[in-house]
């Protein structure tokens, strides 16, 4: 319990610091946001109206960054993430950031979930089989395959997958993204392929990592003890080595999860997915700072939260840690 409290405390402090940094950073960036929204010919009244709407001014007076940060933060804490500079909901209403991200988030999260399922289901058995294999040809083949999979850039992998599954096998319609709101089955069916593009390099890395970790563990003294008891290699591998070898792999998987949940920018682009990664890029390009700020907070939160989960998992696997 004390441990949880400590972690929560760190999480809050980190998010606070990041939010201040993110907010301040975009105050420094030059450029007239209001002007670029209303256009050059707009009347001063219109300009002031927009500025007040966006929270730059109040009753005709400019507000200091400190005041705006406090208001913004208050809003964020109450679930009001502000409005986008760029996207409009209707003629006279800017799009709330919450709705904007809320639309994109499920795409990224489902992509992450499907990729992780692939990664975990394939890489762990692959790593174990690879570590166990005595056949040097199989060993070499796996080495070459994983190395290739790790080295190929993901956009290229995306293109190949589109070509093979989309154009040759017609397993999905390239560019034919189906919204989860319309047809959830079709949505998942479409996501399988981008998820593969995300997962394949990570599968290769994780399998390789697990294999190396297992081979290192195989040299440990306790493995010799297990053999001296009359354990078969199979039993030694699954009963003794796997758990110990998983420890570094869990950290690695945590890093991967954090990376994917934060948004796979390239893959979303290649497969035309309206996810968080693409939103981030377009918001940065169009200086849509409220969106960028919230996305930064989101990514920070995801990374810290995943590491927290990894930490807990670590404690479950390795009894030595919780007592230190």
């Amino acid at each position, binding site marked *: 319990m004390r441990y949880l409290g400590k972690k929560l405390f760190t999480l809050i402090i980190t998010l606070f610091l990041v939010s201040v940094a993110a907010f301040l950073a975009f105050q420094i960036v030059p450029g007239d946001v209001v002007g670029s929204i209303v256009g050059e010919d707009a009347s001063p009244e219109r300009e002031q109206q927009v500025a007040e709407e966006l929270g730059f001014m109040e009753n005709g007076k400019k507000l200091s960054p400190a005041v705006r940060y406090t208001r913004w933060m208050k809003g964020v804490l109450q679930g009001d993430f502000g409005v986008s500079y760029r996207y409009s909901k209707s003629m006279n209403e800017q799009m709330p950031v919450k709705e904007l991200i809320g639309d994109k988030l499920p795409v990224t999260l489902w992509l992450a979930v499907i990729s992780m399922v692939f990664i975990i289901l394939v890489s762990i058995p692959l790593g174990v089989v690879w570590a166990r294999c005595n056949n040097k040809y199989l060993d070499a083949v796996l080495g070459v395959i994983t190395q290739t999979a790790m080295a190929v850039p993901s956009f290229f992998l995306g293109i190949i997958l589109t070509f093979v599954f989309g154009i040759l096998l017609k397993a999905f319609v390239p560019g034919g993204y189906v919204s989860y709101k319309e047809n959830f089955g079709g949505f998942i069916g479409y996501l399988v392929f981008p998820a593969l593009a995300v997962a394949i390099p990570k599968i290769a890395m994780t399998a390789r990592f697990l294999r190396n970790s297992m081979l290192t563990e195989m040299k440990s003294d*306790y493995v010799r003890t297990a053999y*001296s008891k009359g354990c078969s290699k199979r039993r030694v591998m699954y009963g003794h080595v796997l758990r110990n070898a998983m420890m570094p792999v869990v950290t690695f998987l945590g890093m991967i999860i954090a990376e994917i949940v934060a948004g796979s920018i390239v893959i979303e682009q290649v497969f035309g997915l309206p996810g968080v990664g693409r939103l981030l890029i377009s918001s940065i390009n169009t200086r849509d700072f409220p969106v960028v700020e919230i996305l930064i907070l989101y990514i920070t939160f995801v990374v810290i939260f995943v590491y927290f989960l990894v930490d807990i998992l670590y404690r479950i696997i*390795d*009894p030595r840690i919780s007592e230190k």
Partner: protein
Amino acid sequence: MIKIENLSVAFEGTEVVKNVTLELKDGEILGVVGESGSGKSVTALTMMGLVSETAQITSGRILFDDVVLREAGKPLDKALYRKYQGAEMSMVFQEPMTSLNPTLRVGKQVEEMLRLHTDLTGEEIRTRVLETFEAVGLKKVKEVYASYPHQLSGGMRQRVMIAMAVILHPDLIVADEPTTALDVTIQNQIMELLREINEKEQNAMLFITHDLNLARRICHRVAVMKDGCVVEQGRTADIFEHPKEEYTRKLIEAVPSRLKKRVSVMERLYPERYGEKPGEKNEENSEEREKGIPKIAAVRDLSVYYRDGNRNPFSKKKQHCVVEGASFDIYKGESLGLVGESGCGKTSLSKAILGMNPLISGEIKLETIRPQMIFQDPYSSLNPTKTIGWLLEEPLRAVGKLDESLAMTAEDRRAAAYDMLHKVGLEDKYFGRKPSQLSGGQRQRISIGQALITGPGLIVADEPVSALDVTIQAQIMELMQKLQEEMQLSYLFISHDINVVYKMCDRIMVMKEGKIVEIGGTEEIFSNPRQEYTKTLLKNS
């Protein structure tokens, strides 16, 4: 009965075990002694079927009750071996911490033996494990059962290992340096336990050790190995009292022992103070004797603290007292021995003297510039990427950086490094080599050179010979004494090996739980220890 007949084992064409023939009868403890690289462990591992798959049996065979387990030219029959491993023959390893799986409860690990070789049910298995735990002298067996290895002490872990080895009452137990990683008092208990098991179960035991004293205490017969060959084997008493081979004699000779005459550097340095008549020396008060000899270090009421491991900046800092109120002097040219069990504060005390721990109270007065240290493990304490020359010059560079006036030119440093290389008994050709190209003894010579090159008057030597083979050990101790005389050095000599301390030291300081319980001249301490604790320490070694 287990027979090893004419066994030779080769790794990539190099034979490391050559024509070894050993025989083990029921109820007999056979000791295999030898220095590292003598092939004793490979012989045992081959017998157990645990030697790595790259090893080839080039001649001979292994028989277990007339069943051929292994034969030259035939591959390892894993399925056959698995029936014997654990059930008929089991092994106790050197390092009980790493030899147990860190992520499994020890009870489960012992249970595995029964699950592999018997058809007992879960409840029967548990009962049997608990019974065996009791039989090997573990207390609170249920708690032990549910513990992870790191929650147990070294001695308890080794008892768990032994429980695992005996639970199926095998005909053969192989014990590979089973007490080397343990404290002296624990060592003794484990030795007794092994002897008891042997007497009760009447099984054969192969006891592998580099420690001749241990072999002498427990073994019925002893085989001496060197370079893969058995040079001599016979009844323990015969081997130790009438060794036939030159090597055996050398090995026995090299073992530090209280029965041999001590060489005292102090006596040579201060002949007028140290009795010419050896008989009188013992009765003389050691305090009296040291008067007039300059002190190199005076420690008064020293306490050393450590912060608790918690690095959280918000939790309260708790200071842990590891050394309490230590007061002692070290005289010029003297070796002061520091003995005690692990965790008694030996290392903390020495670190405080070296100035490596700022959390102290009390006073340390040194009559010398920075004291230096010689470490235990010459394998890990030398940077493997540097050359020997660079390593020897490094302390000089460091001193030059700290104090401009002591800075030396590159040539001077080089000359000093060559000079030191000669002093520690190595030739010029080693200057450009890397530590990995040197043997353990040579590396320890470099460590000594590193410590001495800045000319400190005081050296803290933390178990400097514990990682070395007996013959090398003797050479290094000789070197240390020679240099001590030449350079008028003082050593604070930390060791768990009472016999080594006896050989090296003029005075001995005994520590227990952070306190110095006794200080006195070596002869006084050995002949007339005042403290109960000192007596147990001496008795156990």
